[in-house]
């Protein structure tokens, strides 16, 4: 199955605006995270959150599956489907 990953903000220079990944049927968010971390040279995806201004506890990379926060779904265990769009939003503070 194919999943589109759209990076945002400081992740764009590292991952590009959008990339399409071929994943095995039934793959979960955890698999996607591992693949992306490999692309970041083994640096965990979550580390991208650490260089921003004060955000406090709970601040993390925001992952949206088809516009819905995975925290409100099954988190890393959320199953992906063909055609899904995953947004990766590092902590962001514009405005």
């Amino acid at each position, binding site marked *: 199955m194919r999943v589109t990953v759209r990076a*945002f903000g400081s992740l764009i220079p590292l991952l590009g605006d959008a990339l399409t990944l071929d994943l095995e049927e039934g793959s979960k968010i955890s698999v996607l995270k591992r693949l992306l971390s490999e692309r970041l040279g083994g640096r965990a995806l979550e580390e991208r959150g650490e260089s921003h201004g*004060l*955000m406090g506890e709970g*601040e993390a990379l925001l992952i949206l599956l088809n*516009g819905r926060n995975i925290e*409100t779904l099954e988190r890393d265990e959320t199953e992906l489907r063909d055609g899904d769009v995953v947004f990766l*939003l590092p902590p962001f503070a514009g405005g």
Partner: protein
Amino acid sequence: MKGWNGRLLRFDLSTGRKTVEEYPRDLAERFVGGRGFAVKLLWDELRPGTDPLSPENILIFAAGPLTGFALPSSGKLVVASKSPLTGGYGDGNLGSTAAVNLRKAGYDAVIITGRAARPSYLLIEDDRAELRDASDLWGLDSFKAEKRLKDVHGRGSGTLLIGPAGENLVGFATVVSQEGRAGGRPGMGAVMGSKNLKALVINGSGEPQAHDPKGLRELGQEGYQSILKRDNYGFWRRQGTMATVEWCQVNSTLPTYNFKEGVFEGADAISGTTMEKMVVKQRGCPNCNMICGNVVIDSEGRESELDYENVAMLGSNIGLGDLRKVATLNRMCDELGLDTIGAGNTLGFAMESAERGVLDLDITWGDFEGAKVLIEDLAYRRGVGDLLSLGVKKASDRLGGEAKRWAIHVKGLECSAYDCHLVPGMALSFATSPIGAHHKDAWVISWEISTGRRAEYNPEKADKVIEFQRIRGGMFEEFVTCRFPWIELGFEMEWYIKFFEAATGVKTSLEEMYNLGDRVYALIRAFWVREFGGQWGREQDYPPSRWFDEPLKEGPIKGSHLDREKYDKLLQTYYDKRGWDERGIPRKATLQRLGLGEEARELERYTTLK
């Protein structure tokens, strides 16, 4: 005093009289500068009940103790007055050479009273301050007037101007500088216009004196280097605040069709990524190495400087998905001296009112030509523009009926560009902002959404709003340094403590700066209460009713809306944590704890303190 110049320039436009005043050290230490100076001076000197557009109103331009030094993002000043839009405390800040030159001229603030007999501009050059005739500038847009003034007084002159909107006393007229830097959303430009004051031109030949000049210089250099090394620096330089368009779109918080929706079908066409392909140059404020103004060529072939707020408000909020056309509307607002946020919000209100048949106006969503005409009509108060120039609150009051339902404001100030149907913390931030619905003080939305608990009304949200208000609305507004290095790149707050100590020789701490923020917030709230007297109540701290009563109809979180009962509880939590009573008025003990005992006694003349 080191760091501070220790001098205020007072100018009475009615008499042409100039006074230079050495102010007490107590003012510097308790209120630091910028917004702190402004509210203290307004509290002490403005007679309650003053008509904001009368000669008696006081207009203040205040720099801070770091302004004018070579320190990151420090070239800014605050403009403040009693607001003609809201009737309460109003301010804004803008980056301008005028801020740096004011300090070089030997002042920390300029206090303007009275009304000039004819259109004039105020020329400040070191010890000289005189009123010059501006008959030939009156009526010119802010870009043309600025060019003329710089032709006469030099390219390096600091200028602060109004356009026709300020001259015509439009409720959301701003003060503009350097073709696109604007500040003072709650009608600070109209206050200038009411005083017949077209511009200030500021030049100075001196330098502010630091307590530790060598140490401060080195710290500044280290600070600039540190900013350049930050992870996010490269991307920031590419998009600045414009990255927010896409971020808001995917999170359903992009103001769309007058804040009815949080997603816009044309979002990609107005995004930061689209802008990147159009940028022809970048502009920034003085002393800044993370400049955020991206200049594009608009649909009329002119340059226009974009950032998120103006693009969202003049784009998605009015249903316009064409960035070059949005850029044209933005440039027109800057020329005319109209607040882009207020204008976009008011256009959305007008389009919805026309759609509902409440306003006799031939305009539809996304109607570019109609928007151009209406923007001009707003600035010149022609036709229906006269009514709308009052701002959406007053316009909806006059229209009557149900128009209030789609007037999107807090305390009379039009909401800036975040839809809050499902971010109660951000709604609380808008609702308790000290000038009305502005995002500047407590931009909690990113934190709130990324926690994965955006729908909750937990007490931590009140804590976070207060924390941000202390830092962004407190420390940064008093130092008058930009919040972006800290919030966008993680440039640590401890840098600013070091800057302050090297500049002034005064030891301080983040805790003391938080306390300063609380003091300034309490005094601003006291100012509002003194103006409103018995009419003040917690309903003033409510976000627009639309977010409660009209659920989102589009996007992944459609059906979402705020909950009144839960919001009210969150508001009470906020009051309790601030030490304010159930009306949102600081308690007597709170004022005393913050060193505002004298102010508490004054406030007791207008209301009962608990």
